[in-house]
């Protein structure tokens, strides 16, 4: 060490004992507080001029930029129609960020971000336009010194997935990873594909899409997005269950009476009637979001947090779902459609009167199900799922209702049973969780009252949480697939819902249950849960 008096402004290096064992990169990037480092990359957004890019993707990328989390020199290339210029695309992005970003436009930050945005006109069916895209990408990457790492984001209807991927292959945009990780990728750059849900509209179409993609991309290169899995509260389910000793011992058939998962939307189909007519609530919400939530709340503890270990455990739950087939569909599933009603005092039309909806449509806007997981942990415990449009409020939550205490001491009065303990995980809005417990009311008599221990992300961690897309896009850049759906899980989920869809398809004359907009679903859904001796717990 230098003598400070002799050399006041020098910090001397020290002989390295084991520096040869690690690379310079490893030594600099060490430590829990080390910055997240994604490799420089070009993000190509197919459908870059669409609604998803405008409302979600570009605002998410802008927020990552403000947080200094985007890799340096990154290029974001929107492709699609209508033809536009880079400047017009920047204006389009700025408009989306102004209206939908969780943080306002910061002019200095925007200027730097805008310089990374480009637009290329492209028609999926036209091979020539892919050649033009390739040329433009080469120029952009050369100018920005990018190594050729590319992420292709298919923000497109699922019908366009296969043509887009085939064109990518035809244009030689995709190099498959070699067995030795990093070997070829360092020379040629990696290629990753992001696919938006829904993947297909039934098992066969999902398999067809997955097969077509698999001809071009290795499974390790494919990131199937379900944005629900990027929400902080959803990620917190694993922490809640496996980082706390209080809950996990209770999470089984010995202590849990039943579980409810509610995903309620207050909006109608709006302008998405054309899409929704082909989907319906079961395809749109249950097959993906809700079965993923079910898997997270019910899965066994994974051996590690490695992506495939976690996804293996989730898959086990979906595989363990007792199939609902034939007559059981009538007993365990309710589908319904909203009719005209009110939203916050304003009259709103029924589903069949929405734009681009068949006036005789049989598409369900609501579905409620009773499920069972046939494994040791959950044997006999009913899981009730419900989702719908035009319900009284927007709310997604999971509630785990524990069994009643014995009917002695404070629970002797059968006419006034104690409130059960319920653990509620609120996914949106007002993210957090609450535990309902019973407490004594102060006073001379022993009277009890249900109280709530409530944790809210907003009031506990204060600062605004990142949007789901921010986390998910960053994960793709880093190469962490944990929060993305694997092919086998997607297909297992389709396999579970197909008998229900098939049964419904066969019923063309049975009247569809209905509920007035602004209500919590049809009477049939109430009867479904009441016949099992339970009640819906409204958020």
């Amino acid at each position: 060490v230098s003598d400070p008096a002799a050399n006041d402004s020098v910090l001397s290096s020290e002989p390295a004992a084991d520096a040869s064992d690690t690379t310079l990169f490893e030594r600099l990037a060490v430590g829990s507080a080390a910055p997240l480092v994604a490799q420089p990359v070009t993000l190509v957004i197919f459908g870059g001029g669409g609604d998803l890019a405008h409302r979600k993707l570009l605002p998410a990328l802008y927020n990552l930029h403000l947080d200094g989390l985007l890799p340096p020199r990154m290029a974001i290339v929107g492709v699609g129609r209508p033809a536009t210029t880079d400047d017009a695309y920047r204006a389009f992005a700025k408009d989306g960020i102004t209206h939908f970003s969780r943080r306002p436009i910061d002019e200095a930050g925007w200027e730097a971000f805008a310089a990374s945005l480009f637009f290329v006109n492209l028609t999926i069916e036209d091979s020539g336009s892919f050649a033009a895209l390739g040329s433009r990408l080469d120029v952009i990457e050369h100018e920005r010194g990018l190594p050729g790492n590319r992420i292709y984001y298919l923000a497109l209807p699922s019908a366009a997935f296969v043509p887009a991927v085939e064109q990518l292959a035809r244009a030689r945009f995709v190099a498959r990873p070699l067995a030795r990780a990093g070997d070829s990728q360092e020379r040629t750059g990696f290629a990753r594909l992001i696919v938006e849900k829904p993947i297909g509209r039934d098992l066969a179409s999902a398999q067809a899409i997955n097969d077509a993609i698999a001809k071009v991309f290795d499974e390790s290169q494919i990131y199937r997005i379900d944005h629900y899995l990027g929400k902080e509260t959803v990620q917190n389910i694993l922490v809640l269950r496996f980082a706390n000793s209080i809950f996990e011992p209770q999470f089984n058939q010995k202590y849990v009476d039943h579980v409810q998962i509610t995903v309620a939307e207050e909006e109608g189909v709006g302008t998405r009637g054309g899409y929704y007519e082909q989907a319906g609530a079961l395809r749109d919400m249950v097959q993906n979001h809700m079965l993923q939530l079910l898997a997270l709340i019910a899965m066994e503890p994974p051996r590690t947090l490695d992506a495939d270990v976690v996804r293996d455990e989730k898959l086990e739950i979906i595989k363990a779902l007792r199939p609902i087939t034939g007559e059981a569909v009538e007993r365990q599933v309710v589908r319904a459609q909203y009719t005209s009603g009110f939203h916050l005092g304003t009259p709103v039309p029924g589903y069949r009167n929405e734009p681009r909806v068949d006036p005789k449509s049989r598409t369900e806007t609501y579905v409620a199900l009773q499920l069972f997981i046939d494994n040791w942990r959950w044997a006999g415990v009913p899981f009730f799922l419900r989702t719908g449009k035009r319900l009284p409020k927007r709310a997604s939550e999971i509630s785990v209702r524990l069994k009643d205490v014995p009917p002695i001491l404070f629970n002797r009065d059968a006419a006034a049973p104690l409130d059960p303990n319920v653990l509620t995980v609120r996914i949106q809005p007002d993210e957090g969780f609450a535990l309902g417990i019973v407490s004594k009311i102060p006073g001379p008599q022993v009277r009890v009252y249900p109280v709530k221990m409530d944790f809210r992300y907003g009031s506990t961690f204060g600062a605004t949480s990142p949007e789901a897309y921010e986390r998910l896009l960053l994960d793709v850049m880093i190469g962490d697939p944990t929060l993305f759906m694997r092919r086998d899980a997607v297909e297992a989920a389709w396999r579970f819902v197909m008998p229900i869809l098939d049964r419904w398809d066969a019923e063309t004359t049975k009247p569809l249950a209905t509920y007035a907009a602004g209500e919590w679903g049809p009477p049939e859904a109430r009867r479904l849960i009441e016949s099992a001796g339970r009640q819906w717990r409204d958020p």
Partner: protein
Amino acid sequence: MAGSVATRAWRPSALERLDEDLTDLWREVARDAPVSRAVMSNLVVFCRTSGDLDVATLPADLPIEAVAGQHPARIIVLYHDAAAEGRDAGRGPRTLDARVGVLTFGAPESRYGVEEIVIRSACDEAALPSIVRALMHGDVPTSIWWTEDLSGSRPLPPIVGLARQFLYDSRCWSDVGAAVRALAPLLEDPFGPDLSDLNWRRLTPVRQAVVHAVASSGGRRRALPAPVVISHGPGEAALAWLTAGWLIACEAVAADVAVEEDARPDAVLSASFGGQLRLRLDAHQVTIDDPLGPAPFTVTVPREDVAAAVAAELRSLPRDSCLGDALAALVRRFGAS
């Protein structure tokens, strides 16, 4: 989400009846509508004072309420009258003045509140823990926010020993060597608190940029090119020395690191590695120019005010080994106290 304070309720108090006064305040605040008490940690804000001081006044230069909104904590502002300590040494704890408050945040239907306690103490240093310990919640972490310049104000061991985290801002150091020597005992204590430096947070994009530069050079470098010269603008000496400490601790350079001042008023931090790789930090970004890399690039400096930085540090309880190693390198350079 956290925003500005919705309501403030305050009352004068005394050490022996703080809890009763707080209980009364909570009742008062909850009279019209329910309010949840939010407490993630104890945050002890240590400020020295001398002479008369009105405890109704919070330190004007510290965004304490904004921190409370982002990281709800029981906030204990401790004004310590060091002069009185000298005058009255050995007379045991004396609290001159105290007040308690409840700040509420959030919409009326989902309000949450945090407690704030302001105390002016004039007692022996050794007696301070008896005050602070009585005010802390035992089941949440405790952080000390040391608001003084460590160059001239050594952390008080009796207080620091209560904390799991010791938070300071090296940007206010007037003498880096003296401040590093003041921190040395905490670094050497295996049971000492975790150190958090607000100024170190500002180095995150710099570290990120250097890591990217190394990654972009395709692993061709075993060490960063020498000689290494780090230049800093006025008031940024600590940032430059922390950069030097980090590079040495990571064994990223095989030669000495020179630190020099750049008198230009807009200068923040720049570094030259062998005259090849160059780095420049300004208020908005870090720019890297590397002849071995494919092209110059920038890393954005995250927008973060002091309150957000403090709240983020309070949430980061795991020990930051990189900061500890960088400081240890500086302790070896400047000598322990």
